[in-house]
């Protein structure tokens, strides 16, 4: 184990995969310069500019070229810079990448990774702060992963690169500099297996991505015995573990940074209710963002941000209803 930042863990994982498999390469804006969060730092020096490719600001072609390259046997890592820019490449992701295997009757596979750092970060305002994971979990064909720790940033990236499915990796921008222990030899983390972050009998708490450390802190400080699951991947997700826990605690809190309305928390709650039955929960709540764009001013952004105090308050509410 070595203590390192989220960005360094991801950087080392990609480097290791590129050493292991010469068919792995990466394309996106400013990659030769290290990427905007340093997650590609130094990789062009080691692997050259044919495998670490800095591209024009051409999101459709970054995404679509990744697909073409996958159909010809390579394993591209497509970097979208931030998730919001994926919106300029939605046809390529949703109607091409997600569907080629199916439409072509299994003749071709889009074995690729789409990295899209998401969420609030340093007052980036409405067009650079969105959490759109629910859009993508809705799309058949895609695997959606959302790491919340440095170790998972590495393990999920390795899994994504080795996966034959197209994998969307939504890295939380706010956690690039967060530190954690990372295995020296990173193993792939299987999709659909949650990390059981804390054990307790009073309340089942489900979260992912940027709110993982927030929830962990709140669980420690709230005094509520929380059973905390960091989902790590949202499609597939660990329904079995969450439903089993909710059946035991009878109370469920889902916390995410994304807008609550039609957020992935709605799917989690719905599946848990289907799993435990309509009378199986004594308390349930979703804690996410209001249905408003993310504002610029620190005073406004902080008002919208999911804080440990807000999560702890929700834990107490749900645990005592």
């Amino acid at each position, binding site marked *: 184990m070595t203590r390192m930042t989220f960005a360094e863990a991801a950087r080392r994982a990609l480097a290791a995969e590129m050493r292991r498999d010469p*068919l792995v*390469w990466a*394309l996106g804006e400013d990659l030769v310069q290290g990427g905007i969060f340093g997650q590609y730092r130094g990789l062009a020096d080691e692997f050259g500019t*044919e*495998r670490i*490719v800095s*591209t*024009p600001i*051409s999101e*459709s*072609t970054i*995404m*679509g*070229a*990744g*697909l*073409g*390259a*996958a*159909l*010809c*046997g*390579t394993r*591209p890592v497509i970097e979208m810079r931030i998730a919001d820019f994926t919106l300029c490449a939605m*046809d*390529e992701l949703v*109607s*091409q990448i997600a569907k*080629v*295997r*199916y*439409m*072509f*009757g*299994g*003749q*071709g596979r889009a074995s690729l990774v789409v990295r899209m750092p998401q969420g609030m970060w340093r007052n980036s305002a409405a067009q650079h702060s969105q959490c759109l994971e629910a859009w993508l979990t809705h799309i*058949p*064909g*895609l*695997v959606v992963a959302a790491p919340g720790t440095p170790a998972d940033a590495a393990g999920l990236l390795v899994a994504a690169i080795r*996966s*034959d*499915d*197209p994998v969307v990796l939504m890295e939380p921008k706010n956690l690039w500099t967060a530190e954690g222990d990372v295995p020296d030899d990173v193993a792939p983390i299987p*999709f*659909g297996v949650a990390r059981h972050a804390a054990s307790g009998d009073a309340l089942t708490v489900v979260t992912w991505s940027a709110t993982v450390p927030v929830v962990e802190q709140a669980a420690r400080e709230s005094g509520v015995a929380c059973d905390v699951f960091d989902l790590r*991947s949202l*499609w*597939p997700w660990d329904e079995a573990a969450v439903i089993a826990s909710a059946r035991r605690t009878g109370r469920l809190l889902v916390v995410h940074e994304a807008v609550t309305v039609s957020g992935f928390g709605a799917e989690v709650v719905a599946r848990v209710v289907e799993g435990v039955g309509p009378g199986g929960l004594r308390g349930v709540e979703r804690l996410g963002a209001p249905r408003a764009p993310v504002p610029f001013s620190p005073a406004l952004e902080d008002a919208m941000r999911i804080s440990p105090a807000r999560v702890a308050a929700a834990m107490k509410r749900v645990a005592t209803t």
Partner: protein
Amino acid sequence: MSGTSNETARRIAMLRDMARIRAFEREAVAAMRSGEAPGVVHPSIGQEGVAVGVCANLRRADRITSTHRGHGHAIAKGADARAMMLELHGRAGGSCGGKGGSMHIADFAVGMLGANGVVGAGIPIACGAAQAIRLTKEDAIVACFFGDGAVNRGPFLEGMNWAALYRLPVLFVCEDNGFAAFTRNSAVTAGGGPAVRAEACGVPATVVDGEDVLAVDAVAADLIGRIRAGAGPQFLHAKCYRWEGHTGTDAAAYRPAEEAQAARGRDAIRRLAAVLEAEGVAGAEIIGIEAQAAAEMASHRAAALAAPWPDPGAAYTDVQDAGAPA
């Protein structure tokens, strides 16, 4: 078979391919109109010279990307026409097992990376395919077919710049049939047209009469030769005309009938047949080639109607490995 030179034999093969495409499209349109083929087909009748003239210069290892009007590209690249016809009918044994239909025909065994239901979407895919080919040091190029409507989409600009920037081995083929769906493309396109736009991004462009397969063949041979020699991407603007409507049931009332009639007078198949006859190929041989093509495609259509439907369970396969439908 007449005693012929290699060149004449090659031209006879081009005639055969064009005749096979036309016969395929005629059966496809008839099947759509009768309802035997569900959904929609976009026939390429009148455009056969472009597909055949380009693909006559491709090797099996070369890749193509295609469009919603892609039957001709697939057949010219060597795709299995019987499997294609089954696919149009949604039957088991179709190119995609009945899961794609006319707009998503692919035949990876011959480098046909797929038709596409989204205009211009093949352009980025072709760029990436060429990048992979370079990365893996494969000896192959990519031919990217798209229509004139695609030049008004963003991926066209992105892709031209991208291919020129990385000097990718791609032949862009703008198959200009004059119409973007129901609209005359010149009515919605400003500036100097496809070739000017390509050249503005640094992709050398050549304009060719797409209704003259020998002209397309000659230009494609030159451009593809340059691409194989490492010259980077090339652009071929092939002018032609879409004889049918946008789909097999579109009567194309938005254009004068005389215009469509005039295009039939420039038929690439008849023009090549005339050249072959002038070279001494017997008229009977040409008639035979066309009759054989018609018989082949009629037989494929009959086979499609007799083929079983896919197992309903196939609706849920090939979605994804992790998190597959329950």
